[in-house]
């Protein structure tokens, strides 16, 4: 019996086993075919409702979830909430209670606070999908990156993956590090010293290496993953200027020559051309940036199918979230 995926929510990669991740990727591979058909729709989630609740701006991820839901015949509703004026905790709770009253099957949440989806998972009957929570996790991004790597390289185990950029603010980096190391890849990271969190040192045991420079991280790498400089989160001075960042931590053509000959370049988007990645590399033939976007729809279809498809019984209850480890059993289980 192969490993199946029986979680009620998808909150982060850190809670998943290698078998569960592989099952998600295998399912996504099947869904990739649906997007290549003339009629890009299957009836699997007919009559189910998916709410995309986004407290942060997003085009790619929100559209990707919306298309994924619609290709499964679910009804997708998008809600974008500005957080500028209201206290975030209250808004999230109130919004969640109101949405819950309309019985959605799945809520896809993006929020600037780490742990927000865990909070929602405690109060909602709907399945919660984390579409990015602060600097914590962005599990579907890591899954689509893994699907892209697997598609091109045929495997994840044994690969050398370099991740370059701002680790401190990057939920993409965290989810990817968890996923890639769980599946047996070696991950080398490089970024400004101010932007590599101290706690990453604990991950050295599972296959994380902290490289002193971009050149050393990229040298011999099979996969080079570039992170976006998140200008909206630069409230403190982590590096002197964007120009300086581009010189020391941007990916240039001569870096790539040191990587494995068939190395691939990835970026979660949106790209800051000429800052974290040279423009010609983003458009080059080693770049898989648009494959990543295509695979995003397949991965999100797989996630929605595995969470919102089938009966709502028989889920294993989620393990502890990072916010409140002593989580109690959910009240009023939905049948």
């Amino acid at each position: 019996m192969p490993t199946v995926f029986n979680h009620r929510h998808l909150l982060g990669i850190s809670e998943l086993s290698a078998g569960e991740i592989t099952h998600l990727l295998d399912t996504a591979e099947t869904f990739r075919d649906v997007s290549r058909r003339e009629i890009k729709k299957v009836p699997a989630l007919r009559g189910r409702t998916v709410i995309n609740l986004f407290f942060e701006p997003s085009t790619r991820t929100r559209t990707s979830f919306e298309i994924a839901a619609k290709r499964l015949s679910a009804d997708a509703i998008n809600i974008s909430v500005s957080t500028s004026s209201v206290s975030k905790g209250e808004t999230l709770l109130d919004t969640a209670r109101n949405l819950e009253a309309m019985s959605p099957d799945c809520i896809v949440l993006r929020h600037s606070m780490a742990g927000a989806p865990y909070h929602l998972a405690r109060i909602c009957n709907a399945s919660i999908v984390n579409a990015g929570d602060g600097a914590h996790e962005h599990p579907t991004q890591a899954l689509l990156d893994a699907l892209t790597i697997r598609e091109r390289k045929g495997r994840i185990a044994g690969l050398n993956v370099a991740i370059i950029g701002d680790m401190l603010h990057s939920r993409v980096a965290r989810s990817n590090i968890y996923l890639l190391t769980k599946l047996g890849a070696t991950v080398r990271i490089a970024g400004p010293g101010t932007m590599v969190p101290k706690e990453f040192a604990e991950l050295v045991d599972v296959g994380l290496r902290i490289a002193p420079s971009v050149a050393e991280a990229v040298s011999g790498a099979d996969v080079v993953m570039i992170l976006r400089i998140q200008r909206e989160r630069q409230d403190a001075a982590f590096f002197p200027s964007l120009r300086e960042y581009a010189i020391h931590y941007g990916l240039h053509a001569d870096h790539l020559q040191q990587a494995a000959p068939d190395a691939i370049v990835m970026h979660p988007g949106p790209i800051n051309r000429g800052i974290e990645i040279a423009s010609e590399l983003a458009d080059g033939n080693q770049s898989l940036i648009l494959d990543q976007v295509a695979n995003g729809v397949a991965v999100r279809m797989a996630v929605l199918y595995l969470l919102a498809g089938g009966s709502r019984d028989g889920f294993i209850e989620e393990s502890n979230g990072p916010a409140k480890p002593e989580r109690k059993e959910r009240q009023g289980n939905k049948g």
Partner: protein
Amino acid sequence: MDGARISRALARLASEIVEENHGTSDLYLVGIRRRGVPLAERMADKIADLEGVRPPVGIVDITLYRDDLSTVGAKPIVNRTELDDIENRNIVLIDDVLYTGRTIRAALDQLIDFGRPRRVQLAVLIDRGKEHRELPIQADYVGKLVPTKRSEIIKVMLNEFDEEEGVVIVERPAAAAEAV
């Protein structure tokens, strides 16, 4: 029913299919996962023996089209559907057992999403009998009609998936097996 009898039943179905369709032109065999797929492959070989031309074989996985998807507990594993252009083709759907007809309904819905075939026929190795049908669906080609009770399960075993080859009737709480 043992391996030799499965093979003879398939050979007869192959000749019936060829006769009914006046040869193999346009013929497209489509196996329903899982056990319909090896049966379709074997059927194509039998047709090749008869006509010298092997018809193409496609695969449908009906998981996403199941009408009980919202009630089954564990989410069924989704496998690939592999179909070429079916527009205006002459399709023979192939499955191991015809019981309620719901699998065939799902397969038909999926086919229609891929295009508009000229004709769709149904071939099954075992027909459990019309009284079990929950939809107005009948097979055009039947390997063997096996009237069964609801409390029984037909187990089709094929070398491709199982250790042995044969068809047996099993009591639902897996008790003694009786050869068909």
